[in-house]
């Protein structure tokens, strides 16, 4: 999260919005964010799709959008009120 490149963030936000359009229709998707690569292979932040436990075989996600890598990771979030 150490990039301060404003142009990169503009591009990342557009890519995130495209990704949200593609995946938020899937019930298993709980969160899409821009952050550290959970695989540790990208020096720049990546797009992350958090999914709940269960069958996600029908979830088709590209490897990147506009050159920004996409990672799928587990995340089943509940309100903590």
């Amino acid at each position: 999260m150490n990039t301060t490149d404003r142009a990169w963030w503009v591009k990342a936000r557009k890519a995130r919005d495209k990704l949200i359009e593609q995946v938020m229709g899937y019930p298993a998707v709980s969160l899409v964010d821009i952050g550290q690569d959970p695989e540790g292979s990208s020096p720049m932040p990546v797009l992350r799709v958090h999914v709940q436990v269960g069958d996600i075989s029908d979830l088709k996600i590209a490897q990147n959008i506009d050159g920004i890598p996409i990672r799928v990771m587990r995340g089943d979030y509940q309100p903590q009120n």
Partner: protein
Amino acid sequence: MQLVKSGRRTGITYGRVTAVEGVARLAYGSLQRVIRSVITIDPRSSFEPVSGPGDSGAWWLDADTLQAAGLHFAGSEMPERGLALDMQTVLDALSVDVATERVWAATRALTDRISTAPLIQAENSAELISA
């Protein structure tokens, strides 16, 4: 960035920001809500708790500067992870600012009262015993 919060359920816990500008979908009962401006917070180390049910509403503070960074609202147990709303988004939505000097003064006054409380109690106990 390292954060710290004090929540009703898990007390004082620490975390680190691993992602920003998230868009989450959460179920509040039968209602599905899409929540924007989400900060993702992971534990500093394995097996360290971040948050639990009842912690919503806690402020996540920058651990170094104690500036407000986020408002806790959700979390995951497996894996351990917390979600907070970006604090500036919260302040903008409510049209409020954080009056830091007043908060600091109030906190200081409260701390002073707490730190003297055990001494007062001990003196009272001593009086009770001697009586």
